[in-house]
């Protein structure tokens, strides 16, 4: 099989801080209506007449996977994401305490 490898190196300096609804739908393979319901259920924040802040990407990724893989509806996604974030925070605090506990007296 004829095969040629072109190698190109592109340095990136600018990272986008905004992402449009259309780009979000494309990136995660979702319908516009799903995006709207995520806003309605408070899963992500939308500002009027502006593209989304890229900080919504983490939540959207999770929401889409929960919906696609486990058939969770938007109300369920909202609860799960809030609980997961709380769990992560609790786990961090627990790790801090475990580190404290593990210091040995010398």
């Amino acid at each position, binding site marked *: 099989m004829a095969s040629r490898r072109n190698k190109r190196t592109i340095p*990136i300096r600018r*990272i986008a801080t905004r992402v449009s609804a259309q780009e979000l739908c494309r990136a995660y393979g979702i319908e516009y209506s799903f995006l709207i319901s995520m806003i309605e259920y408070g899963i992500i924040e939308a500002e009027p007449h502006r593209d989304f802040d890229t900080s919504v990407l983490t939540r959207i990724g999770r929401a889409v996977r929960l919906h696609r893989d486990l058939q969770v509806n938007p109300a369920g996604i909202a609860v799960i994401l809030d609980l997961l974030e709380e769990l992560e925070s609790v786990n961090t*605090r627990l790790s801090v305490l475990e580190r404290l506990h593990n210091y040995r007296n010398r």
Partner: protein
Amino acid sequence: MAKRDFYQVLGVKRDASEEEIRKAYRNLARKFHPDVNKAAGSEDRFKEIGEAYSVLNDSKKRAAYDKYGEMWKHAEELDAAAESRSGPNAHYTHMEDLGSLFEELFRTRGPRGYSSPSRGSGVFPIPGMDQHAKIDISLEEAFHGASRTLRFTYPESQPDGQGRPRSEEIKVKIPPGVTNGQILRLAGKGGPGSGNAPSGDLYIELRITPHKLFEVDGKDIYLSLPISPWEAALGATISVPVLAGKVEMKIPAGAQAGGKLRLKGKGLPGSPAGDQYVVLKIVTPKAKSQKQREFYRDMAEEFNYDPRAELGV
């Protein structure tokens, strides 16, 4: 790596009903979903469960799997081969499979259902696929910024209609102050479009690896700090490690174990920057000599202190 038996993966018997398979899948999918289960290996396990279910949930595929095991995808060819007992076609068939596998690989790269590249590209302008990647960085890199080179291989159509793989390296500069789980979006740095169509975007998920001293919560960092009983009782100014090096921190007199002190703005940079929290542990030195034991006894006498007074015993 040899694949596990699909029935074993779902924990069901070979004669399990469709309902039993569906139920087992739902339970396991919920348990091992990588967004819910943060344990290492849960993602691989989830994929394995999904693959097993996709076959066992489809009566045709399941029948092929029961008959041919791991080779179930080739059921039709194996059936045909068994029927005609002719060997010479075997090699050709294998080559065809490689082609379809190649197409399948590229097709599954993006979330959107594109037609396979060899059929679609070059004819209609098709926007490039969005790419999703994950990068592990250390906490120091999250603080100072970092750079990584990612390599992607895309099929590229030539004027002669032949698709050839093209490898592209992208050097990503990660800015200081990124947080765990944050996703960076690099517009137009995903897969190239065909014809005049625009390129896709590149999405990079960042994961901060565990640090030997600090825990991270968003932009805030936590440090567990051991101090001596006299530092706690009398107060002290001590050196504390921070991401930028070290700072002098004042411990107030009468500090208690578990007490949390804040070093404002010493967390991950940003606007606003995160804080560093220092959680205190009072470490009591062992009395190793006669003199030290005497010293503790003198303390007991001098303080006449009952830490259990509130327990009412």
